[in-house]
């Protein structure tokens, strides 16, 4: 097998093999498990770096695994795939480090880390998918591998959350499967097209059917992407431990949904056809509603994780809004926000996890003065929060800038209004947290949950959020650098809109 075929498979295997091994490992073999995990995660990052270099030099990586006649598993490392793969690989490494410390002493860790790794494999599989069959294949694998993570704590609330999660997601997947097979019955088997769509050969008589299929597809992807009104599972799933929430909300599930929509619009239908059919207009409106709704609900939440959950509902729709507006600027904004939002949100969840794990703090109203007890954690939180509020020169500002430009450029000034309102709302629900943490003082002593550490909490709980917070700053400051996500996304946009 050639190197070009081996690399995508290796990227997949670097988390799948350790994951499957770990699932069956006995709880006692802590060290083996940690080694397997860390080797897998590091290997994946190295492979991704190698892939980046290779693609930069024009190498095409592709792997084919035959499955059904005419519908193989097709993995390809195009620029969009690499964007999502890189995000997943880096954040997986950081979340693994975080989770090892977070879950110290808790039961079922083999099950957790095993499925955690399988989950990441599913995510990179989604990223590298080059046809709808492969995309669906890994999309469902993601559903199955995230269920054990959501119910990890096995409490009544966790099991209930798991049931809700499955209800939403499996219903979406049934619709998605039907839509995909329907599309193939009209268009025959096809692969994702890097520029333009793959459906140019379909008879124009089928246009109405294509519109329905488009809406069904983005709708079912929208379940995982938490579009209103299918978003309910996301706040409910907050009962899962913090590493799960961090992974689900920064990388895996919600981004997979948004990614699916991106592939549908750009690589299946093509942006021209998508806009001509009219489906994108509907999508844009739904995204706009979700943005405002999510932010409004976030304001009402006292539970910190739920506030962050609704914030995610809102923020993912920024991406979807950008995807559904015409023009390269909106595309750039959407895709770069996919990366930036991921990094900002994971920082926020790391911080929330630290507060819960170290000091048993779950509610915003309890956070008075915590900035002075846990300065590193809350500094990271503050940086990420300012990023979410689109404060320059942080990463969030960059993506919002392009989204706003894209809105104007795409002839949808109302979208700019939505974005601005949402930024204000973001400030409204983040600033109070920051204010409380730094400018109020606490009367009673802290409820110390963990034994005293040298720093404010376990070192491995601190390193990941600090790193990601730094990234939020760096990716904003050096957005025009050679290796920044923004530059990468520009390449993708150029391919989609060749002029």
């Amino acid at each position, binding site marked *: 097998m050639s190197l070009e075929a081996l690399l995508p498979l290796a990227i997949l295997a670097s988390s799948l093999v350790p994951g499957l091994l770990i699932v069956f490992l006995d709880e006692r073999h802590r060290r083996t498990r940690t080694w397997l995990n860390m080797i897998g995660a590091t290997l994946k990052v190295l492979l991704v770096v190698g892939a980046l270099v290779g693609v930069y030099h024009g190498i095409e990586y592709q792997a084919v*695994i*035959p*499955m*059904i*006649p005419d*519908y*193989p598993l097709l993995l390809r490392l195009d620029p969009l795939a690499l964007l999502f793969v890189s995000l997943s690989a880096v954040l997986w490494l950081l979340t693994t480090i975080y989770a090892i410390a977070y879950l110290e002493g808790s039961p079922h860790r083999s*099950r957790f880390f095993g499925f955690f790794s399988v989950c990441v494999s599913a995510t990179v599989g989604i990223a590298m998918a080059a046809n709808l*069959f492969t995309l*669906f*294949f*890994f999309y*469902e*694998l993601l*559903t*199955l591998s995230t269920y054990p993570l959501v*119910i990890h704590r*096995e409490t009544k609330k966790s*099991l209930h959350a*798991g*049931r809700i999660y*499955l209800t939403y997601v*499996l*219903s979406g*997947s*049934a*619709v998605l*499967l*039907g839509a995909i*097979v*329907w599309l*193939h*019955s009209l268009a025959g088997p096809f692969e994702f097209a890097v520029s333009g769509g793959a459906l140019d050969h379909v008879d124009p008589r089928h246009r109405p059917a294509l519109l329905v299929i488009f809406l069904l597809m983005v709708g079912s992807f929208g379940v995982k992407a938490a579009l209103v009104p299918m978003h309910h599972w996301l706040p409910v799933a907050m009962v899962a431990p913090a590493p799960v929430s961090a992974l689900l909300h920064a990388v895996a599930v919600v981004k997979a949904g948004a990614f699916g929509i991106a592939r549908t619009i750009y690589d299946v239908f093509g942006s021209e056809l998508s806009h001509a059919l009219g489906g994108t207009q509907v999508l844009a409106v739904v995204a706009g509603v979700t943005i405002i709704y999510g932010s409004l609900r976030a304001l009402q939440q006292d539970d910190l994780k739920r506030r962050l959950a609704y914030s995610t509902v809102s923020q993912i729709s920024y991406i979807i809004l950008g995807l559904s507006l015409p023009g390269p600027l909106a595309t750039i904004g959407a895709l770069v926000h996919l990366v930036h939002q991921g990094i900002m949100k994971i920082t926020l969840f790391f911080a929330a996890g630290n507060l819960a794990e170290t000091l048993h703090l779950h509610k915003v109203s309890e956070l008075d003065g915590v900035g002075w007890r846990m300065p590193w954690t809350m500094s990271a939180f503050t940086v990420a929060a300012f990023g979410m509020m689109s404060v320059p020169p942080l990463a969030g500002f960059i993506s919002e800038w392009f989204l706003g430009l894209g809105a104007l450029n795409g002839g949808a000034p109302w979208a700019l209004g939505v974005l601005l309102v949402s930024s204000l709302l973001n400030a409204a629900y983040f600033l109070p947290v920051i204010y409380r943490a730094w400018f109020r003082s606490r009367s009673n002593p802290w409820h110390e949950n963990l034994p005293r550490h040298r720093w404010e909490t376990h070192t491995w709980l601190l390193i990941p959020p600090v790193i990601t917070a730094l990234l939020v700053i760096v990716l904003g400051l050096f957005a025009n650098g050679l290796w920044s996500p923004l530059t990468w996304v520009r390449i993708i946009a150029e391919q989609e809109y060749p002029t």
Partner: protein
Amino acid sequence: MSAGIAPWLLAAPVALPLGAGLLMTLLVRGRSLLTLVAGTGVLIAVLLLLDVPVGTRLELAVGGWPAPLGIRWHLDLLAIVFLTSTAVIALAVALFAALHLSRSEPAIARHFWAPLLFVWAALNALFLSADVFNLYVTLELLTLAAVMLVTLENNQPAFDGAMRYLLVALAGSTLYLLGVALFYHATGTLDLVLAAGAVPPAALALMTVGLMAKGALFPLHAWLPPAHAAAPAPGSALLSALVVKAAFYILLRLWLESAPNHDAGRILLGLCGTGAVIWGSLLALTQARLKLVLAYSTVAQLGYLLLVFPLAQGAWTGTAFAGGVWLAVSHGLAKAAMFLAAGLVMYTLGHDRIAELRGLARHAPLTLFTFGIAGVTLMGLPPSGGFVAKWLLLTAAFGSGQWPWALVLMGGGLLAAVYTFRIIGAGFGEGPIERKPPRAPQWIALALAGLALLAGVAAELPLLQLQEAAP
């Protein structure tokens, strides 16, 4: 593979289990060992037969007596697929029983082997048969051996379930035989292929109704849940995974080879399938006992198989055929795994009430995991064989413009998810156990489920061949 050996190899899958079964009356000890030896022999013979190139029809006239008076066996792709999957499942169940049954149900362990071997021999003979009367005889043998499995537990529900099964089977086989009579008088032959096109609708209808009764196809399914639930776990595995498929196999051959042009009848079969999916799934949701959930799930999954008939038309015959066959194979693997796991649940907890499954996740995680993995096939999610089959059937549905069946397929998958996760969700939390579950049998059940899970990944070559070999 020289042409001379191959026809004799055809005799092995029937002769080995039949011979071993008859020897059981002489043996007091070593029964499980003999079964495993005979079973391994069958598996080897079947694997060797896989080597035969697709498209050749191997034939064997048993005892040298030529047709139409003698029994003629022939091997084509459909037969070899069923022979192989049956061999894998039966051997796995036998291994499970050999390791576990003497510990969990010592009173009946000695009596399990003969019925298992006869069921296996009858199935293999059925798959190899080429004419409608041979199918009748082998089906009768299969029924008798299967009823034996149901009676093993030696209690009231077992005898009741067995009697019900036997009576329905009796009615079914008489109907079928009447159909054979009409078949023979109208076409002048008993051979399925030779009679193609000349089969009168009355004969087809009688045979179909008879087969539906024997195969628990809605609405003639009522006997299955009590019978399958009353049998010991390895017996239920054989019954749900293998025995019921026999009727489907015959229906496939009948409708696709002999009587390809009865569209209205096919739609009727599809409607029965829809009824099975809905009714079976809904009832599976409300059962209090695990084995009854699994039994009603079988009723529902058999309904999917009936959908093959309206879908296998015109250009899409191959696709639907491949999907249906793969579904039958995958379901067999998954359902056998689930019943074996249910047996382990009964052993560990002392009962199989769903409301009190708490503690499984803690003390028997492999068993719970088996339910999950097997459930993936029932739900039709990737990478399982069930998913691949569903994709093919959906492709045939949309391609031929018969999209209502697609809705049945998609809805059924969701219903399967509900009752599967009902089982899994019930296993969490703290609860008492009676005994620790044994390791090796848990791994056997998990391995079967794993095979079903991976049946999608390695599927391209067999699927391609099935598509092309469709009658």
